[in-house]
């Protein structure tokens, strides 16, 4: 008895993005032809976005187990034990395509979606980080003015959207990163990481149990918005008509989500909830079939009981709607009144729409008739798995690019000033001041003050550190090494505030997986990430894959983003990057046991020059994007991380900041900008060119400052961890100064440099309006 009248034709199947093979599989599972609603349900559940059909076989290679992992991939979010009976629940997710089509709502609902993933597990969200990628916002690389103008609008819209949602919901947006590369002009990346905290013995899972238990729908009413968001928006390339997909973007209501959070946590405390899942991608379809599948049961729902915002909605529309701020839960039969009472108190819809069955089927009734009937497990777990063809792209000519070097003894101050104004390096203050980064009064390290954000855990002596990182430019040149750097840098960032890296989540942003070169990039990046996580003992507890980041046939730079969570045992020992005292020693720590002492060999200098061509200096000053990423030494990274954690916990350091974009010069300057008027004066001897000495981005390095009296202790610990420590300068006031072999390379007033660095992004985004707005 099928309620829908639309006939399923081969054309309709193709429009749903379902292949011949997949359709045959559907016929086999059902033992008959699917009806229109069932076709829609299969198409979203088996979409790339929901099923991971192209990535699944590769993701298996990631390390996901460790003693601290309480829940690995496969649930709404990953969970790790962080001590004191507490569990950290965290995950990162992308909302790339919606954010391009409608930046404000796309970014806003991206925040909303990942917050629900966290609180559906019983954890109160305590921090959000955003990893953003846009096209150029400054005139460079011959980009058309209208492209730059559009990029600026996207930045503005995305930032406003994140602020709109997170600020109202009441979660602090504490960090993340922003990069600007031409490849993201037609396809920006908006990856959002959310962290929540729950008592470790009070976690909730998305599993239905107990035949006859009521299935309860809570939250916002269902409308026609977001239909096929997951399948048509997230699982297909962009074309010129993509802007017309605006109706596929959902609309967010952070106020409703805030009520939903409070009501869910309060309802969970009654003890009457058996299982719960948020309605994200594929809405009612995915929650019902995934909860049934995980619990090994069936679910029957009657759509007439679903709260609806519009009249005359079909079963197809209701099952595929991605209206926001909705949850599905299973309660204990007989105790549903306790649950319903809580939601009523918060003024939210909560309706019993069905019950748990024992037949393993997702049965959807509409007006009392069966609109769809599908084995839940087949829908959730038996999606096709593809081993897509892999082929390395032909090596780019740019690998041989070289940065022309200035004559020995040249003053590089002008170049340094340009570097500080580069949007990738400049202060992100204009962005993070639009986010409430303090609400909940846990944020002890504010955005921009250190390499990682830090939130304390009230009632304990601990704090958690979080950092995200991604190296799109390096991944284009070498996805394996680039992905390793992303892991290493995020881990280093966390260690620089004194936290031990504890677990990671990822968001893998790539182009069309049906292109063998993209699939090769993906496979290489997964291998690189896997190798780095193993070497640094960081399990990956979940994440998200975003494919089809292509516009007009052109793929983005492969961009695996990693978010590393660290634990600080003694929150009082947290470090930031700011210099603290005039006269303190500045020390460069290098995880590599033996480091260039005298003049480097010709071969190693050639290699260093190849690596330098992929640096931010090469791009900003010389206009070159090429070469190879710096060679990575994971053993050195691990030694440096361990040494930083030890130094911080012993209270030896006044500040710490890892060396990354812009090299030591930028690192030193940032330690000054973050402080109250202090700045660095550094000098050393080296056989390498000044550009490489100050601007190369070789990994496994950090700059620390400390009192002269603590130097001896630092050297002892450095020797113990087999890292190298060079005293390179001291903390001073007034002039920022770098010298090499006795010659001044950079010298400028710290206030003048700080001005360039702090205002560049605001001026780039707002242009002439910048001065009028504070």
């Amino acid at each position, binding site marked *: 008895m099928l309620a829908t009248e639309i006939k399923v034709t081969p054309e309709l199947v193709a429009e749903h993005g379902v292949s011949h093979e997949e359709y045959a599989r559907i016929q086999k599972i059902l033992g008959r032809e699917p009806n229109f609603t069932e076709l829609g349900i299969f198409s979203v559940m088996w979409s790339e976005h929901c099923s991971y059909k192209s990535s699944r076989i590769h993701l298996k290679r990631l390390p996901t187990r460790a003693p601290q992992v309480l829940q690995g991939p496969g649930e709404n979010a990953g969970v790790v034990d962080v001590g004191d009976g507490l569990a950290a629940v965290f995950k990162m997710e992308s909302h790339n395509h919606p954010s391009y089509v409608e930046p404000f709502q796309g970014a806003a609902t991206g925040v909303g979606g990942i917050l629900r993933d966290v609180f559906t597990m019983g954890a109160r969200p305590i921090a959000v980080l955003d990893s953003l990628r846009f096209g150029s916002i400054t005139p460079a690389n011959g980009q058309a003015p209208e492209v730059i103008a559009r990029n600026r609008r996207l930045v503005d819209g995305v930032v406003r959207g994140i602020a709109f949602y997170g600020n109202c919901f*009441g979660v602090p947006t504490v960090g993340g990163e922003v990069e600007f590369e031409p490849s993201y002009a037609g396809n920006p990346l908006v990856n959002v990481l959310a962290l929540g905290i729950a008592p470790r013995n009070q976690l909730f899972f998305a599993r239905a149990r107990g035949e006859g238990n009521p299935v309860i729908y809570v939250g916002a009413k269902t409308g026609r918005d977001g239909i096929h968001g997951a399948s048509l928006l997230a699982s297909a390339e962009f074309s010129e008509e993509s802007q017309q997909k605006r109706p596929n973007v959902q609309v967010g209501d952070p*106020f409703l989500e*805030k009520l939903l959070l409070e009501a869910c946590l309060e309802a969970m405390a009654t003890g009457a909830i058996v299982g719960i899942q948020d309605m994200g991608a594929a809405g009612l379809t995915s929650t019902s079939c995934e909860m049934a599948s995980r619990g090994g049961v069936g679910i029957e729902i009657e759509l007439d009981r679903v709260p609806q915002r519009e009249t005359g909605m079909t079963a197809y529309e209701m099952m595929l709607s991605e209206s926001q701020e909705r949850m599905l839960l299973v309660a204990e039969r007989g105790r549903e009144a306790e649950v319903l009472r809580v939601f009523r108190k918060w*003024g939210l819809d909560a309706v019993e729409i069905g019950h748990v069955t024992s037949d393993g089927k997702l049965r959807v009734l509409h007006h009392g008739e069966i609109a769809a009937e599908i084995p839940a497990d087949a829908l959730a777990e038996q999606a096709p798995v593809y081993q897509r063809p892999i082929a390395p792209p032909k090596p780019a000519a740019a690998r041989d690019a070289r940065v022309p070097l200035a004559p020995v003894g040249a003053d590089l101050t002008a170049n340094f000033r340009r570097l500080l104004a580069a949007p990738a390096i400049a202060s992100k203050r204009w962005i993070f*001041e*639009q986010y*409430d980064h303090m609400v909940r009064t846990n944020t002890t390290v*504010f955005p921009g003050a250190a390499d990682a954000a830090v939130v304390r855990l009230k009632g304990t002596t601990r704090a958690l550190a979080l950092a995200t990182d991604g190296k799109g430019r390096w991944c284009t040149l070498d996805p394996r090494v680039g992905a390793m750097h992303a892991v290493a840098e995020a881990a280093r960032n966390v260690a620089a505030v004194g936290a031990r890296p504890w677990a990671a989540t990822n968001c893998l942003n790539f182009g069309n997986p049906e292109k063998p070169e993209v699939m090769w990039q993906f496979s290489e990046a997964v291998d690189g990430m896997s190798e780095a996580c193993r070497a640094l003992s960081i399990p990956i507890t979940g994440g998200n894959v975003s494919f089809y980041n292509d516009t007009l046939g052109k793929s983005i730079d492969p961009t695996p983003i990693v978010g590393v969570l660290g634990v600080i045992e003694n929150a009082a020992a947290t470090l930031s990057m700011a210099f603290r005292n005039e006269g303190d020693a500045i020390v460069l720590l290098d995880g590599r046991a033996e480091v260039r002492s005298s003049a480097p060999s010709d071969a190693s200098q050639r290699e260093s020059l190849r690596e330098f061509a992929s640096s931010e200096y090469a791009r900003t000053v010389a206009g070159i994007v090429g070469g190879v990423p710096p060679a990575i030494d994971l053993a050195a990274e691990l030694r440096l991380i361990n040494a930083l954690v030890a130094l911080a916990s012993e209270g030896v350091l006044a500040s710490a900041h890892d060396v990354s974009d812009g090299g030591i010069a930028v690192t030193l300057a940032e330690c000054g900008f973050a402080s109250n008027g202090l700045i660095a004066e550094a000098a050393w001897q080296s056989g390498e060119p000044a550009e490489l000495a100050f601007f190369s981005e070789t990994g496994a390095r950090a700059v620390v400052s400390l009192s002269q009296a603590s130097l001896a202790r630092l050297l002892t610990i450095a020797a113990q961890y087999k890292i190298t420590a060079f005293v390179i300068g001291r903390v001073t006031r007034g002039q920022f100064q770098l010298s090499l072999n006795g010659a001044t390379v950079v010298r400028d007033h710290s206030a003048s440099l700080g001005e360039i660095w702090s205002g560049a992004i605001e001026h780039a985004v707002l242009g002439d309006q910048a001065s009028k*707005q504070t």
Partner: protein
Amino acid sequence: MTKIGVVVFPGSNCDHDALHAASEVLHQSAEFIWHQSQDLSGFDAVILPGGFSYGDYLRTGAIARFSPVMNAIARFARSGGLVLGICNGFQILCEAGLLPGALMRNQGLRFICRHVHVRVETTATPFTSVAQPGQVLRIPIAHAEGNYVCDAATLADLKHHGQIVFRYCAPDGRLDPAANPNGSLDAIAGICNRERNVMGMMPHPERAVEAALGSTDGLVVLHSLVQSLARQPAAAVS
């Protein structure tokens, strides 16, 4: 022991922070008050916390003012009870007519979250009694609608009666247009009523109560409140 109430409207999101400051930092007895409550008996002071009550729909504070608890708060205030509105709480007090003026969109039309400096303009309030005259406090703001405005007569009145409690200022206490983050009239960051028992302020003192949070200057406001309660007989009850 005095008891401080923190009102919870749908969408309040600094309620936990205010409660934490009152109970864990100041070691006072503190409890949430649900927005439908009509009874404030037993409370000596009430805090209207920051957040987005009713999602800021229509206008900030415009819907919250109709909550049942607001009638109780008006009675509580009339009988001399101490009422502190922070951020959204300030907006609600203005909408409810317990404080004059209104808070409009920030001049830059953007949400701003950062530490600012405010100068204590009067110590003759229960919320600033432990401050030094002219003391500069470093306290965070986090709002999109903090641009205080009122008509000229009201402003003259506020000045005449010493009701301007805080002004945005430079770190050294100078009034400087560049230090006014949102375009507020006369750099006003906080005001009290004529009777001085109701105060609203845009900066968040509850976010500046522990060294780990980057400033403890907010304690000046909260310590003043607690000391004033200790000096007063228990506030009259609604």
